[in-house]
C-alpha cells in the first residue's frame, strides 16, 4: 500500500474516533437530560426528601446544599496547601531524588481508588478522631485526592510563565518571593483558576470517598439557623451530610419502589450534570476574563 492511501485511511480512522466520542457524549448527556428534566420542579429543589422507602419522592434541598458546602470546605483546605505545594514544586524543588520521590507519591495519591480513600478516611477522620460521620471528615478525605491534582495545576501554571518574565523581575532587584507573588502568580492565575474549578467539578460528583466519611444521612436541617456550632445548622461542619451523588447511590440501594428511585436519581443526576457543566463553562469564562483583566488593565 502506498503512503498516500495509508494517509487517507488514517485520516478516516481519526475522524471516526472523534465522531464516536462525540456521539457517546451526546447520547449520555441527552439521555440524562431528557429523563431528568421532567422531574425537576421548584419543590424538588427546595424540599427535604420524602420517605422514599415508602415511595414518597420529596426533594433534594439538603443534599444539594451539602454538595456545595462540602465543596467549599474542601476548597478552603485544598487551595492554600495546593498553591503552596505548587509554588514549591515549580520554584524551590531541586531536581533530585527527594523531588522525584515526592512526585511519585503525588501520582500514587491522585490515582488511588476513591473507595480506598473513603476507607482510610473512615479510620482516620471518623474513628480515630472520634468525630463520627462529619462534613469536616468528608472534606479532608476529598482533600487527599484533590490535592495532588491542585499541586500539579499550580505547578504547571507557574512553570508556563516565561522564564524571561521571572528574570526581568529579578534583574530589577526584586526578591524571589516578590517575583513569585507579584509577577508570576498573577500571570499564572488564569491557569490556576481554570484548574481549580475543573477540580471542583470532580469533587462535586464524588461519592465513594464520602460514603464512609461524610455519611449517608443528613440531620433535619433548619435553614434559618446560621450558627455553625448548632446541631441542626446547615453550616455546622461537624454534622453528617449526604451529598447529591451519595444520595443517588443510597436511594437506589434502599428504595423498595424502583419508580421512586428512578425519579429521585433521574432528577438528581440531571442537577449534578448541570452543575458540573456550569462549572466547566464558568471556569473558561472566568479564566478568560482574568486574563483579559490582567493584560489590558
Amino acid at each position, binding site marked *: 500500500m502506498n503512503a498516500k492511501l495509508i494517509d487517507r485511511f488514517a485520516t478516516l480512522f481519526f475522524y471516526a474516533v472523534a465522531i464516536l466520542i462525540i456521539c457517546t457524549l451526546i447520547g449520555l448527556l441527552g439521555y440524562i437530560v431528557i429523563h431528568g428534566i421532567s422531574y425537576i420542579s421548584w419543590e424538588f429543589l427546595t424540599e427535604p426528601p420524602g420517605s422514599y422507602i415508602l415511595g414518597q419522592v420529596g426533594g433534594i434541598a439538603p443534599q444539594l446544599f451539602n454538595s456545595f458546602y462540602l465543596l467549599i470546605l474542601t476548597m478552603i483546605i485544598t487551595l492554600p496547601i495546593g498553591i503552596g505545594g505548587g509554588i514549591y514544586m515549580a520554584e524551590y524543588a531541586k531536581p533530585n531524588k527527594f523531588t522525584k520521590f515526592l512526585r511519585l507519591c503525588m501520582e500514587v495519591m491522585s490515582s488511588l481508588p476513591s473507595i480506598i480513600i473513603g476507607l482510610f478516611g473512615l479510620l482516620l477522620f471518623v474513628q480515630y478522631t472520634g468525630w463520627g460521620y462529619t462534613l469536616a471528615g468528608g472534606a479532608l478525605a476529598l482533600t487527599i485526592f484533590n490535592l495532588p491534582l491542585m499541586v500539579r495545576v499550580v505547578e504547571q501554571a507557574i512553570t508556563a510563565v516565561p522564564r524571561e518574565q521571572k528574570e526581568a523581575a529579578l*534583574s*530589577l*532587584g526584586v526578591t524571589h518571593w516578590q517575583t513569585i507573588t507579584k509577577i508570576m502568580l498573577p500571570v499564572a492565575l488564569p491557569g490556576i483558576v481554570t484548574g481549580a474549578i475543573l477540580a471542583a467539578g470532580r469533587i462535586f460528583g464524588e461519592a465513594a470517598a464520602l460514603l464512609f466519611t461524610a455519611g449517608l444521612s443528613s440531620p433535619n436541617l433548619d435553614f434559618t439557623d446560621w450558627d455553625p456550632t448548632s446541631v441542626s445548622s446547615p453550616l455546622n461542619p461537624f454534622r453528617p451530610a449526604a451529598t447529591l451523588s451519595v444520595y443517588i447511590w443510597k436511594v437506589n440501594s434502599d428504595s423498595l419502589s424502583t419508580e421512586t428511585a428512578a425519579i429521585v436519581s433521574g432528577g438528581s443526576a440531571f442537577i449534578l450534570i448541570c452543575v458540573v457543566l456550569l462549572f466547566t463553562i464558568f471556569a473558561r469564562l472566568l479564566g478568560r476574563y482574568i486574563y483579559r483583566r490582567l493584560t*489590558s488593565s
Partner: protein
Amino acid sequence: MSQTLTVDKFHVYYGEKHALDNISISFQPKTVTALIGPSGCGKSTLLRSLNRMNDFIPMFRTEGSVRLGEEEIYDSKIDVVNLRKRMGMVFQQPVPFPLSIYDNIAYGPRIHGTTQKKKLDQIVEKTLQQAHLWEEVKDRLHKSALGLSGGQQQRLVIARVLAVEPEILLLDEPASALDPISTEHIERLILSLKEEYTIVVVTHNMQQAKRISDQTAFFLHGEIVERNETQTLFHSPIDQRTNHYLSGQFG
C-alpha cells in the same frame, strides 16, 4: 555613578561542562563592550554570570573573581538582590509585565520604596524620555504595555530597567528579535545611554557590534580569543580564528 566591572580568571561550570574557561576582561564606565561569537561560545553565560542570574540553574558553579568596583560579586555575604538592582538586564525577547505602561516603569521604584505619586510620575517621564519612547506613549500611559509593538516593548523594558537607577547595563541580544527600524531605535538608544553607564552587550550581529561598541571581545568555546578596540579588532584581527569568524568562514 557607573562602575568598572572586572572579571578575573573566571571559570563557569554547569555540572561537568566547563562553560567558561579562564576569562579575564574588564568593562569600563561610559564604554560599550560587545561580546561576539558563535552560538554556545559562552558570551551569554558570561553576561548572565555578571549579575548572578545563573544562580537559579542547578549544578552551576564558578571559580575566580568578578568585581563591581571593589566588591566581590560571588562573595557569599553579598546582597544578591541589591546587586541585581545595580546591574540592569535586558533580554532578547521583550518582556513587559502584564501591567500598564506606567505600572511597568513604576514597578521597580515601588518595590524599592518610592510611593509618592509625584515622584513616580517624574521617574516614568524621565526614563521614558531617556528610552526615546515618551512621545509615542505619553497619551496612553495607563493602557496595557502588551499593546505596544515589539520595538516599543523593548524600549519600555529598557526604561523600566533605568527606573531603578542601575550602574551597569547588561544587554542580551537586545535587538535580535526586532525589525530593522526598531533595531535602529535600540542602537541609537544604546549610544545615548553610553554617556552615563557601563554597557555590556551580547550580539550575534557583527555589523551591530561595529556600529555601537567601543570594545569588542570575540568568544569561542568558552574562551576569549581576542579582545580589542572595536575598529582594530574588525579591521586587523590578530588571531587567525577571529579573522575566520569575521570573514564568515564559520559561525
